[in-house]
């Protein structure tokens, strides 16, 4: 063995021994603190919501019902079992006005073109929709002054022993997006072998968009403590007939963890790689 070979083998042994990593996958549970300090509250009141969009779902009632049931199982706060307030009417009465409904026509149908290859959406479709009385997202903004009315919320709070009040706006509307979509198609070559090839095709898709704004109010002072806004959408093949209520629950399901994370601690489960 030459001197060079001896040194080379020594270096090689040194290098190999220094480079070996052993990996261990380990489950982790990352704790997240609540976004809002609710330690000063014992009770929570889901007051009601100013709602707009489709009338196929009573978003005020359904949201209040869903949040109450979720809070009962996922929060330490006592959920007050009270009638849901028709906040839209209250807001109109308080302001002494009737805000324009369906003025913008934004909810009637929203068509979005996926990409440049798409043919233009038929404008006649938009015109074909009957004029409705549904409130658009823009219309809802006109009603938001009720959330700043501290005396109204303080008065409501007094009725229920100063709870944390949850209110806000909910906009749930039909949504349409047409364009080119990729899907896989089975093809057989001349030898009868099966292959899967990507095919792009024009597809009409319909669904719903849900945009809630949750406002948390201190029932003792009437002051807004925290606001959080979401926007979720879901699309189906236009031939598929999915009930509005089912889409509503599917969309609410996505944002419930965030809502609950405002009031109580949550944890995110995952795995990480420990290295030796």
């Amino acid at each position, binding site marked *: 063995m030459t*001197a060079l070979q001896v*040194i080379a083998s020594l*270096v090689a042994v040194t290098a190999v021994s220094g480079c070996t990593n052993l990996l261990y996958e380990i489950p982790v549970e990352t*704790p*997240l*603190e609540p976004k809002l300090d609710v330690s000063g509250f014992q009770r929570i009141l889901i007051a009601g919501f100013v709602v707009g969009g489709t009338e196929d779902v009573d978003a005020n009632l359904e949201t209040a019902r869903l949040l109450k049931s979720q809070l009962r199982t996922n929060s330490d706060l006592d959920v007050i079992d009270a009638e849901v307030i028709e906040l839209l009417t209250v807001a109109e009465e308080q302001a002494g006005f009737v805000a324009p409904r369906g003025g913008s026509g934004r909810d009637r149908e929203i068509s979005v073109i996926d990409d440049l290859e798409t043919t233009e959406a038929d404008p006649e479709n938009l015109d074909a929709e009957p004029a409705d009385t549904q409130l658009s997202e823009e219309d809802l903004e006109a009603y938001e002054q009720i959330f700043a009315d501290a005396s109204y919320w303080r008065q409501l709070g007094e009725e229920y022993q100063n709870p944390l009040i949850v209110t806000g706006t909910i906009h749930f509307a039909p949504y349409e997006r047409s364009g080119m979509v990729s899907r896989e198609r089975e093809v057989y070559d001349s030898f009868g072998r099966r292959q899967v090839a990507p095919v792009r095709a024009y597809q009409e898709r319909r669904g719903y968009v849900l945009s809630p704004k949750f406002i948390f109010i201190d029932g003792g002072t009437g002051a807004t403590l925290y606001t959080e806004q979401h926007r979720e959408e879901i699309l189906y093949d236009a031939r598929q007939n999915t009930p509005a209520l089912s889409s509503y629950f599917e969309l609410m399901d996505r944002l419930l963890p965030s809502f609950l994370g405002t009031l109580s601690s949550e944890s995110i489960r995952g795995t990480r*790689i420990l290295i*030796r």
Partner: protein
Amino acid sequence: MVIRTLVLAYVLAVAAPIAAEADERSNAQAQVDFGIAVAQRGLWREAIYRWKRASELDPSYAPAWNNLGIAYENKGAFDKARDAYETALDLEPNNLDIQQNYDLFREINDRVTSDR
């Protein structure tokens, strides 16, 4: 004779510092091993102690910092977790396992900072 001299020279010039370094590394590795064993049993506080010790013994030992990042993340100490992961990545920028841990951590951390 020449070979002996060369080997001796190698030992003095390369192997001796490596051996000293290896000594620190093996001590750090022992702490890391123990940390892994206790973390697998859910004893994260002890694991943090071991991995901190390992990072003190050998500050260039990336696995100690990576594991420390995981432990801090599991405790909800996001700032400390970020520092530990970033130190690990500074030491081993091409380590895909550390990068993956860091990416997953950042996903949660970004959500927390945007929400709160």
